[in-house]
């Protein structure tokens, strides 16, 4: 067990040093710009490693795009201008939060539609169940005696 813990500790230690050694050297010249870069990078998808943002990714392209964002910030471009720059080149796919429009309707509306469908099915089921309970007739004399016999059998065990 101790051995395992040690392995884990070493593993995480190594990933931490790895991460810090690969962050860009030019970091934090200007804390405000750096924060904007960070925020923007987290909104933009790296197209090479498709499920990472360009902030997370160390792919060549992500580095290039970060450099591009950095230089645009330096040129005084607004966040919207920077995001538009990326979208005109890479499409909506580059956005981690795609805009709501025709083609993304299923993406945005799908979960809500499924939830409504589920609520509808649940309501229908509960109603049917309620009417079935209400409609249930009391047991006949014959059924009552059989039920009692069964209960007795169970209790005597």
């Amino acid at each position: 067990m101790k051995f395992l813990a040690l392995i884990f500790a070493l593993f995480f230690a190594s990933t931490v040093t790895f991460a810090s050694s690969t962050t860009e050297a030019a970091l934090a010249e200007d804390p405000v710009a750096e924060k904007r870069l960070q925020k923007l990078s987290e909104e933009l998808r790296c197209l090479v490693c498709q499920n990472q943002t360009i902030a997370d990714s160390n792919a060549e392209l992500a580095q290039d795009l970060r450099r591009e964002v950095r230089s645009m910030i330096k040129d005084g471009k607004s966040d919207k201008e920077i995001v538009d720059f990326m979208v005109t080149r890479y499409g909506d796919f580059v956005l981690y939060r795609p805009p709501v429009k025709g083609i993304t309707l299923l993406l945005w509306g799908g979960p809500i539609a499924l939830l409504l469908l589920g609520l509808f099915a649940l309501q229908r089921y509960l109603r049917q169940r309620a009417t079935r309970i209400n409609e249930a007739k009391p047991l006949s004399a014959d059924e009552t005696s059989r039920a009692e016999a069964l209960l007795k059998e169970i209790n005597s065990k």
Partner: protein
Amino acid sequence: MNRYFWILGGFAALVALLAVGLGLNPREVPSPLVGKPAPAFTLNVLATPDKTLSPKDMQGKIWLLNVWASWCVSCRQEHPVLVEFSRKVDVPVIGLNYKEVRGDGGFDMNKMPADEEKKLAFQRANKWLADHGDPYKLTVMDLDGRVGIDYGVYGVPETYVIDKAGVIRMKHTGPITPEILGKKIMPLLAELNK
């Protein structure tokens, strides 16, 4: 009975949706550049480094822009297809060499001066074309990948079909196979030539 019908139907619909979704190629991201004018650039020509080429020099012609690099493994796969194409079809193919040196990953770019990178890039690109055949009318050198960003390049090789007015009509990401050439590119070229 009715209830099972709904549950089974819903499940079948979900399976169908997932089957279609999983069959798609996630690498094929629709390019917003299709239907837009090809982004401008002025880059040095590989064969004549003192000369440059811009997309507007190609105005009035239908042409292909093929993004490649010597370090790109899939480029090797598509190269014979391009060589064959250039022999048979009278449509110029312009090569865009993308990050020949710094894309390779084997060099420490912090330690390499710009002129050395340039020299090495031209040398490597020339050697690659000499070894594998040169299907390109011209190749231009995008050393830092800046033009690649304008073209939305994210996975070499990529190929663009550009019409006489300089508008991008098609983009293909990944190697060109004989199938893609026959089914997608040739019909488009025929249509554009009308």
